[in-house]
């Protein structure tokens, strides 16, 4: 699978992530093989404790990158559970397998040439309508996203809702691995979010104005001046600079407007 057990020269710089925990050992089954692991570790740390060196199935170790999608079952339970290996704490007698990669259909598109019309999404992902609303995707989502609802929104042409519902999607692909209709939900959501961000939400007018002012060289003189300013003087400018109060509203304006 995705992991290799190898001897390596001990790196002097390596620091143990595992502490000497005087915790109770519990049995877990990594791809069917039994290991005894201190309780309280995450699945990822448990695999490393067992001796695995992860190449695949390990990324940010903080629950945001989607590299470590994992499925497991517990004895006597028909239900397949899902988790992120870096987030889920081991439980006794878990049978664990990681799904570090799952093939998924992704459309390519010229984003700048798209519009916010729902038909654009339908054309790129016609399989959207193969969804039978079985809700397996939602059950498989380790982020707790209402995946099926977001797909339904897309089917109804509600790109904004699909974008908002799927915002914390980490693209681990577990939904796709369980999909009866063989949809790659997370790629569809990515498209929806981009269309929403670029074409449905109004653009920031103040940003356009600032970009224009910078382009016209409005701040060049100030910056050149700062570049030439000595450290002592800079420190003075820094300490004297007006700080926008924490509680200030959007309408706050500074007193000193010379460098705006």
């Amino acid at each position, binding site marked *: 699978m995705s992991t290799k057990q190898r001897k390596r020269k001990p790196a002097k710089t390596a620091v143990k992530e595992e502490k000497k925990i005087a915790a109770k050992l519990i049995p877990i089954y990594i791809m069917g093989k039994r290991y005894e692991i201190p309780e309280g570790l995450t699945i990822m740390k448990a695999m490393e404790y067992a001796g695995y060196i992860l190449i695949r199935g390990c990324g940010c170790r903080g629950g945001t990158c989607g590299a470590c999608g994992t499925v497991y079952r517990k004895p006597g339970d028909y239900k397949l559970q899902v988790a992120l290996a870096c987030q889920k704490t081991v439980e006794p007698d878990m049978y664990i397998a990681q799904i570090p990669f799952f093939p998924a259909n992704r459309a390519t598109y010229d984003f700048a040439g798209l519009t916010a019309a729902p038909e654009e999404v339908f054309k790129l992902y016609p399989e959207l309508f193969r969804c039978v609303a079985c809700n397996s995707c939602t059950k498989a989502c380790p982020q707790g996203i209402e995946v099926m609802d977001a797909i339904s929104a897309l089917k109804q042409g509600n790109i904004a809702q699909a974008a908002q519902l799927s915002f914390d999607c980490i693209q681990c692909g577990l939904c796709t691995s369980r999909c009866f209709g063989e949809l790659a939900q997370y790629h569809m959501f990515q498209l929806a979010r981009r269309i929403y961000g670029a074409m449905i939400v*109004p653009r920031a007018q103040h940003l356009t104005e600032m970009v224009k002012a910078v382009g016209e060289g409005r701040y060049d003189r100030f910056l050149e001046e700062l570049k030439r300013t000595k450290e002592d003087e800079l420190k003075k400018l820094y300490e004297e600079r007006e700080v926008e109060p924490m509680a200030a509203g959007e309408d706050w304006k500074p007193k000193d407007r010379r460098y705006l």
Partner: protein
Amino acid sequence: MSYLGYPDFFEPYIKKVEQTRPARIEKRKKGEEFPFMSLQERQDMLRYHPDYKEEGRREIKVGPSKGYRIAHEFVDLLEAKSRVDPNKVDLSRVDYEADVLVIGGGGAATVAALIAEENGAQVLVATKLRHGDSNTMMAEGGIQAATKREKDSPYYHYLDVLGGGHFKNDPDIVAAFVKQAPDALQWLERLGVMFTKFPDGRLGAMHGGGTCRKRMHYCADLSGMEIMRTVRDEARNRKNIKVLEFSPAVELILNEHGQCAGAVLYNMETEEYLVARAKAVILATGGSGRLHVQGFMTTNHYGATADGIVLGYRAGVPLSFLHTVQYHPTGVVFPEQIEGWLITERFRSEGADVLNVNGEKFVNEREPRDVESARFIKECLDGKGVPTPTGKVGIWLDSPMLDILHGEGRVRTAFVGKWKVYYRLGIDISRAPMLVYPTLHYQNGGLKDNAECETGLPGLYVAGEVTGGLHGENRLMGNSLMDIVVFGRIAGKNATVFAREKARDGELTLKHVKAYHKELKEAGIVADRVAPMLLPDYTTAEVKEKQLTVSYLGTLR
């Protein structure tokens, strides 16, 4: 039993936080702030910062920055041999060809690849893990740019960057950065990044530590993830960007004219070393939290092992500002499962207090990161930290205040990523505070470059965390996400121009690696270390004791 999801052990401590909360909320509402430190007070406080511990570092004995004192963990990697015998790599057999080779697969690398492609280059991206696996993906707080003309400008952004970096920053790099930040933000907006906005499209913005204007823009608490997945998606649409995953570079390749002309790649799954030739190279390998400098925990992703520093240094690029690394003030200390995990500064930006064991404020929560971290460490050294049942010590971050200040549900919606992870562990952070301590977060310095992302090696460009100069000795929140975009774009453009106009054909060579080996030997460095490290080693001693294979055929990974 538990109290608000924490073990009973914490009950008396959490109750102290709850007792002082109403009065603290009142102060917040009145706009009363804990006083900021003066520049002198900040300087004095920094002696509690790990960077200022002399025993934590030593002089490096070889290479272009010989004599520079940096953390042992960096020196260990730089005083190490190549992973390959340079005599054995057949450079006449080229496995991959490109105009521009991008090394790394995070934010800076992907942005650079996009711009290089737009300028007409055939781009090859070689990355160690998956495309997108990076610290960018994990960045939460936001991205700084002066965008509101009525109250902010690049002038103030410049001053803030310098104040954060102790006025040591490279002025040209900072000026280029603050000037191009607004355009970079607009570029992201047009790619479809879902910034948090007001209904009229106005960008939400808040303070970060050390900012004088609210200019930190954000995408809920998943700013980096949203930016990373958007630029990655765009890269996937471009037919002239090819991505090689699980294929880190282990050496740069030069040509006979002294230009950077490719890299030796390592397929981590088949253990083959492969030759990639290019007309220009962009090094964007990110940071180094997984070196665990001074034994600290880290917020960084699995691949953050300073590979680019090693590659560039061996090829003659000096180091800059690598004597400082950033400890983020708020990493989780408890629960153990998420120890070291980053809690975004935005909790403090929105008004969550930091508190000692007595539930008292002892510092303004928006000092620059190094000062804030040093102050936390001091409070704990003074015996006023909050103990944990696992023998550690921490500081409270009073997240429930945000629901009171900004309305019920604020934590749940504005910090959905954090809330969910804690909730899975039985803790509702809209009701219970979080226990934190400084954690290794960012490599302030790196390879020396200029505002054009050029290094001393012609044809080698650098961008993002692997570089040094922009942030001086301490980065401010929100400036790394902008760093990767601004300088990723500059590197992408300039590398393409170099590939088109200056790159020369010529025989490939690894002479610099041989010379480096010789220098190591002459310096009397007897080490069996190899570098780059590629992946950290979390194998336990018990397992290692039993790994008794005499030797491996093939390579040591």
